[in-house]
């Protein structure tokens, strides 16, 4: 089935530099994920689904925008699979498309308060916008 996003497993592997075949399915990444409750697909599912080439379900899910990039899964993976890098690669595959930015300048005024550090805006732009 051709994906409307036309993202292949090989592209995700090239963006991320990660080989999902290294995964031994222990689930520690998902067990340690602080964003577990916010995600439809969890870190171990990103790894398994990229390996199986089921990219389209991932690119259509809001889960890609719920990762905190805390690197807990990356640190605690006993096989150095680095699931966070696969989640980042899928998110990039989404926002690199034309008109696909997840955070727009017009969105900001409603989100910003007086104390919000510049770091938050810079980081969110890096994660959600191209």
């Amino acid at each position, binding site marked *: 089935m051709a994906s409307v996003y036309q993202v292949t497993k090989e592209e995700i592997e090239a963006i991320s530099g990660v080989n999902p075949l290294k995964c031994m399915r222990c689930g520690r990444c998902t067990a340690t994920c602080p964003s577990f409750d916010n995600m439809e697909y969890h870190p171990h599912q990103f790894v398994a689904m990229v390996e199986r080439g089921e990219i389209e379900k991932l690119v259509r899910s809001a889960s890609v925008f719920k990762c905190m990039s805390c690197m807990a899964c*990356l640190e605690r993976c006993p096989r150095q699979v680095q699931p966070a890098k696969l989640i980042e690669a899928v998110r990039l595959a989404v926002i690199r498309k034309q008109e696909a930015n997840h955070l727009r300048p017009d969105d900001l005024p409603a989100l910003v308060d007086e104390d919000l550090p510049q770091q938050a805006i810079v980081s969110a732009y890096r994660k959600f916008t191209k």
Partner: protein
Amino acid sequence: MVYSYFPGCTLKNKAKELDLCGRAALKALGISLEEIPEWQCCGGVYPLSHDEIAIRLSSIRALRYAKQHEQPLLTMCSACHNVIKQVNHDMASDEYIRTRANAYMAQEGYEPYAGEARVVHLLELLRDDVGYDKLKEAVRKPLTGRKIGAYYGCLLLRPSNVMEMDNAENPTIMEDLIRALGAEAVVYAQRNECCGGYLTLEDPQIPKQRAEVILRNAKASGAGMIVTACPLCFYNLKRHAAESGVEIRYLTEILAEALDVRGSEAEEV
């Protein structure tokens, strides 16, 4: 020793206390800083993608400056530290990234860079270069009786094979600093779990839930105060701290207070 200092965007704005108190404390300890001229924002988050080169360049330019001046590159912000140290590691160890990034460096008229600079966070400077024993001797107003929990968050420790600051699951560098300043260090389980970070702009409920878990855990463990080196952790925790009664401060604030430079030299820097 003189350090090339990379303050970063937030320390010049919303996190001025982190910068000013840190500078004042280092001045009192006889450490000289040279702010890197025309430093550029680190980007806030390390690019977890392997194929993005241009967003690594601001870090490489700062690193290049430190190398040229034969100075360690000093950071005080957790985010800047994480980004710059990881990019430095890329340049030392990843030929794909190094080759492409150095093509940009050549265009700017510079020699190839290969991760030669030493990147140190303020905490490492205090532990490794100054030494906590010497720091202890410099304390003029010990924080006796204070119960302070260190909040590491994510960025100081992970990934530990690159950051090499401390044990990622059982760190002691901040607790040892707190003790050197005369306070009691409160160890609690959530100190190295995420505050929710930039998701505050995606869904504020997520950092709210994270902050509540962290604050509840710190308070139950006896902490009256939490210290951090990250402006975003500071924001996410402070926003939800009122109910718990736990005070949120930058670690440089307690450092300056113990060295008794707060409010005097801090204003002059």
